């Protein structure tokens, strides 16, 4: 016996996030679980989901304590959702939030569930600091020791230096030893992205986000947390002169004295959380919740960012979205210009500009993407209209939820249209999606 449900449309009903905060500022004492719980509860309150059993809650964190193995389920249990709501954790670096949304969306599309929440949270303030690796091994040996002599032998290997040199988490790529910023700097050099263009994009992000706040855009997308009502990385009075006065920070290892990435045109380490409510149209109608937009397509891509093949350089670490988007467009039968809004996550201004350049580059589009002609330009006035990560900050796993909720609301306000989401992730990956109304 086989009975298949026809694939259903997946509705985005709304989203919620707490204001994002630069690392080690206002949320320095907040844990991932606290932030995710507050975000979920805000969503539950807004859509009156108290006591509701949802199909699934999928979320994740990139920086996670080992005790948080069931972070999302633990958070759900702290909300007023029915305790019978299942939940699980995922992790795909900065793609976590959008990947979570795709998982929930696919379950809804296939009829496995009727409703669900997707989200993400991250803190780099309350980061997991591991024991010194040598000390950890000794302690494990100690626990395995069977007699006093063995225990003493293990304990004798402990050195004071092991106590003061813990294993700190790094925002780096294990296979190359370079940080994300250094990889982005390499990409900026490869694509000849001038510093000026990066600073301008950063300025635009701040201006757009400030304008969005002024217009009250985030009023129904945000729950204040710890007395914070606005992303604290936002500089409404930022000027191009201020951005120009910042020194490059990622060039020492990859391009000494020739860097273009600064603290102004790169995202800071950020704490925050986000969540979106997804459902079938039937569930939405039954709960009298208006549909904001629909998730229609998604694609994931990965690139080889460290191997060298036949003398050809490996691909830029954060270039995977450049591959994912054309593949998704081909499936959807769309061109890059068929969109009203583009939400391209600004990990670094350079990453956005490299991607946009790649899509206009004949050689790249032919050789790397196998296309007969380039994807072409986008209308820059449709890009990150309400600001993006450069201004808001980027709590790794929380960015996907922010983008989905923001874009869905923009399409709802417009009445109809189509938007593209593109997120690059560590490990040379990219997660992209199309949202329509």
């Amino acid at each position: 016996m086989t009975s298949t449900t026809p694939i259903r449309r997946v509705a985005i009903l709304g989203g919620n996030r707490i204001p994002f905060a630069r690392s080690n500022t206002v949320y320095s004492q907040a844990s991932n679980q606290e932030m995710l719980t507050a975000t979920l509860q805000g969503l539950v309150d807004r859509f009156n989901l108290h006591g509701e059993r949802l199909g699934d809650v999928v979320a994740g964190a990139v920086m996670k304590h080992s005790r948080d193995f069931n972070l999302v389920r633990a958070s759900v249990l702290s909300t007023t959702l029915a305790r019978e709501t299942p939940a699980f954790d995922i992790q795909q670096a900065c793609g976590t939030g959008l990947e979570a949304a795709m998982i929930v969306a696919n379950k809804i599309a296939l009829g496995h569930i009727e409703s669900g929440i997707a989200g993400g949270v991250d803190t780099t303030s309350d980061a997991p600091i591991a024991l010194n690796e040598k000390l950890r091994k000794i302690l494990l040996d100690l626990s395995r020791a069977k007699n006093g002599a063995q225990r003493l032998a293990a304990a004798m290997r402990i050195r004071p230096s092991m106590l003061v040199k813990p294993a700190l988490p790094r925002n780096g790529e294990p296979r190359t030893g370079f940080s994300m910023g250094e990889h982005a700097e390499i990409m900026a050099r490869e694509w000849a992205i001038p510093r000026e263009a990066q600073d301008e994009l950063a300025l635009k992000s701040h201006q757009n986000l400030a304008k969005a706040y002024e217009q009250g855009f985030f009023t129904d997308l945000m729950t204040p947390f710890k007395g914070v009502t606005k992303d604290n990385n936002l500089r409404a009075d930022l000027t191009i002169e201020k951005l120009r006065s910042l020194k490059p920070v990622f060039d020492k290892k990859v391009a000494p004295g020739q860097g273009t990435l600064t603290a102004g045109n790169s995202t800071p380490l950020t704490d925050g959380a986000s969540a979106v409510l997804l459902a079938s149209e039937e569930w939405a109608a039954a709960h009298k919740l208006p549909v904001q937009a629909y998730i229609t397509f998604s694609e994931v891509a990965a690139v080889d960012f460290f191997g060298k093949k036949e003398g050809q350089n490996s691909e830029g670490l954060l270039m995977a979205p450049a591959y994912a988007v054309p593949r998704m467009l081909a499936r959807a039968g769309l061109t890059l210009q068929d969109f009203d809004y583009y939400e391209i996550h600004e990990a670094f201004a350079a990453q956005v500009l490299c991607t946009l350049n790649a899509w206009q580059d004949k050689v790249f589009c032919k050789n790397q993407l196998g296309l007969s002609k380039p994807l072409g330009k986008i209308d820059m006035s449709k890009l990150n209209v309400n600001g993006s990560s450069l201004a808001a900050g980027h709590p790794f796993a929380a960015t996907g939820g922010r983008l989905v909720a923001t874009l869905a609301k923009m399409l709802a306000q417009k009445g109809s249209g189509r938007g593209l989401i593109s997120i690059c992730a560590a490990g040379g990956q990219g997660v992209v999606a199309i949202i329509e109304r």
Partner: protein
Amino acid sequence: MKTQEIIETPSLAATFFRALGTGGKRPGLVKTLPKVELAIPSVTLDAQHIARYAALTGFSASQGVPLIYPQMLTFPLVTAYMCSPECPWPAMGTVHLANSIEQYKSLRAGDTVRVEMGTGQLFTHEKGQGFTLDLRILRDGELVWSATQSLLRVGVKETAGQPFASQLALDTSLSCQTEFTAPADIGRRYGAVSGDRNPIHLTAITAKLFGFKRAIAHGMWTKARALSYLLPADPLERASTAVEFKTPLLLPGRAALWTERSSNGAQFEVRDKTGMRPHLRGQLSY
């Protein structure tokens, strides 16, 4: 006129005393710059000297002979001219105003070249009388490198020549690229390598005699330091650069490099660490 060939370059101490000795020149109005041509018929580019120069200015070995290095070879000619009776003004107190360089072919250590200097034009500057010197490097009779050095005799009341016109675009969209330190002894170290031991670069005390608060960095050192950041990692065949010197960089000091890059060059300024005061402004293309 005949080119005067200089076979033996004078010792540094002798040059210094000759430079001091020219202080008595009081030429009055100079209507045209007397034509003088000097040459060193044969000089071999010394890898060790280039390495010492590169170590002081921040160039890496992979960049080859630094674009600005050949100016070192012309220094004996410029000094000889400035100390000679043909030069209307004293050597001391003549200020380096601008310098532009054009490289037509890359040079390599071991190359044997002919070095030439010729007097150029007079120009009028708001602060005094300016004049240019044309510097040339030839290899096997072919011009491979040329430069124009613009010098200023401050305080000359009656001046001759066209008004000084800046070659540089006034573009303000520069951004801070990096900061670098000008160590207290950089004037002495650069002086030792370049031969330019003008007292204003050596110590605070000698600089004070000439009206500076402290010793100041050689303008050509500051220019070289900036170019070491701006030039690509590999040697270039053709390149050109021009700078104008704005304010002295006092030693020891900290300076910031501000740039606007393009795919084949950059506009740049070396400013003080606050970014408010320019020490030099320039452009580079390759």
